């Protein structure tokens, strides 16, 4: 890390910026990046869109949010609780995704750069 200020602690591993950058065009890295973004981008956009829908309904569709489903539980409350469900679900799904398709692949590339970079 040539440009961040020096400090104490162990010296960084002997690998140059160019060696790391070289991995960027490696087909395995291109594939890793594509796999990751194909999961994260649509999932995040969908979750944020659902949140935005919820906020918009709270602002402009109060009659709908006030529809009573049972007892004193109305649609607004249930839709609010779905935000919690979606957040927890995405967290779990992302965990499983990274365990299956990301962590090992990413670690392999790292080992490749750090150990095999100069050979």
């Amino acid at each position, binding site marked *: *890390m040539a*440009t*961040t*200020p*020096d*400090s*104490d*602690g*162990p010296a*960084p591993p002997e*690998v140059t*910026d*160019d060696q*790391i*950058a*070289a*991995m*960027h*065009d490696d087909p395995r*890295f291109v594939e*890793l990046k594509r796999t*990751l973004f194909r999961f*994260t981008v649509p*999932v*995040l956009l969908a*979750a*944020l869109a659902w*949140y*935005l829908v*919820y*906020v*918009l309904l*709270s*602002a402009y569709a*109060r009659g709908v*949010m*006030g529809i009573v489903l049972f*007892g*004193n*539980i*109305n649609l*607004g*409350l249930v839709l*609010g609780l779905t*935000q*919690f469900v979606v*957040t*927890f679900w*995405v*967290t779990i799904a*992302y*965990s499983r995704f*990274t365990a299956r398709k990301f*962590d090992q692949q*990413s*670690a392999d*590339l*790292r080992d490749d*750069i*750090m150990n095999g970079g100069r050979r």
Partner: protein
Amino acid sequence: MNTLAQEMSDSNRILTIALFMVMVLVTIGITIQGGRTTRTATDFHSGGRGFSAWQNGFAVAGDYVSAASFLGIAGTIALYGYDGFLYSIGFLVAWLVALLLVAESLRNSGRFTVADALSYRMKQRPVRTAAAVSTLSVSIFYLLAQMVGTGALVTLLLGIKEGETFLGMDSGAAKVAGIVVTGLLMVAYVAFGGMKGTTWVQIFQACVKIGLAFVLAILVLAEYNFNLSTLLGDAAQASGQGAAFLEPGLRYGTEVAGDSLQTLWNKLDLISLGLALVLGTAGLPHVLIRFYTTPDGKTARKSVNWAIGLIGMFYLLTLVLGFGAAAMVGQEAIIAENPAGNSAAPQLSQVIGENLAGSTGGAIMLALIASAAFAAILSVVAGLIIACSSSLAHDLYNGVFKRGKASGHEEVIFAKFAAVGVGAIAVVIAVFAQDLNVAFLVALAFAVAASANLPTLLFSLFWKRFNTAGAVAGIYGGLISSIGLVIFSPTFSSTPTSLLGEGVDIAWFPLSNPGLVSIPLGLICAVVGTLMSSESNPTRFASMQVRALTGAGAEKASTH
């Protein structure tokens, strides 16, 4: 229904103070322990990078769940019903941005501060300066919002009312004492314990506040045989609003009869708030620097899983506490105690305790919940101070003035003095500003984080063409537009609750929350700034992206 002050005898206060003292002693002990093994800059700024996923997750929750969340959201729900719930949802969903896009990449591509990652492939000095300015702005706005409220909260928690004295202090003196004690403690945590001490303090305090909120919520639900519907029905009935209490519109986006323009502004204001909440969290520097305390990017990401679980559970609990307070304490009693509703959760704890074990039970529950709120103040404020001191020492002092030539030891010494300095300034401002309405500062902190920090951070991680001019323009554009719009908004002047009061009217911007305008403006500034400059460094981008996704060449944990 009795108010706190009537119930609060001196012996009850002594119980509360005793619990506060226990909390202080335990956290000081933790701080000393953490400080013992703090030697290097990595130890001081990033706690040696040795924290596991659950540890950092708890610390993130301790850092994030403020007294404003603990008392404020419960209070808003108690007074306005449904609309308080909207707030907590924004605070939670926001974590998905941090989880999916930021945590792992930031951990892998930076060292101590947000500016490290932002300036990685840029010209160091201008970007570091800009990033430090926005880090300090967000942290100081947030810090002042917490500190100004602290005095009032401590007197509220101790039940000292206007005109009363306790230990020879009237309520004014007690407020000042509350601010000064909080200031001394947070500076002590940071200066003596560094990030290691602060992290353990935050882990401990997260357990205290979430644990006690959990116990209280279970007790409330038990009163209703765990039937949420009955609880909501009681709350709606007690509020006098009926079903409207359970629907949106009492607090945010209110409809003003006969004034369709004001109704339009109110609704846009709600959307603006919603945007700032959901996009601001992943740009809060005091939260982001916590990711550097883990050994690698994968652990940083997993710590967000813990944080989301804890924070999500906590906000579900506030729902029960808020509606519980509306049903069991009643709005009249809450407003009599504190017009903003901050006393709702403590008052609820007292009622629950009394139902269980008479007035002694009430006093014990009240003291416990007051300590949980005190823990929330201390842990958030300590996190903010360490974010300020890291940025001042690592970004401005070493990065900009010394051009990276200062040793780690010099940086740590500077950071400790910076912590003392920021703490002292915050205490002085908070003492003088305690009668001002500074609630807008939290909204402002989130707006700056969402408008200046998040867009530039994401562009820096993911947009190849992004460059120095774009980063600088994006940060200052987002920062200036957020602050500028708030200055010309109704929170600053023109209404009785404004900072400057009704007498001054410079408010031409109709929304209290600037995010709806400032977030797009920040984005546009970043894009236009980038395209107007020919600077481009594809190799540096390539290495940054490989680092971010694989962790190659990332900072390692300390070995001692």
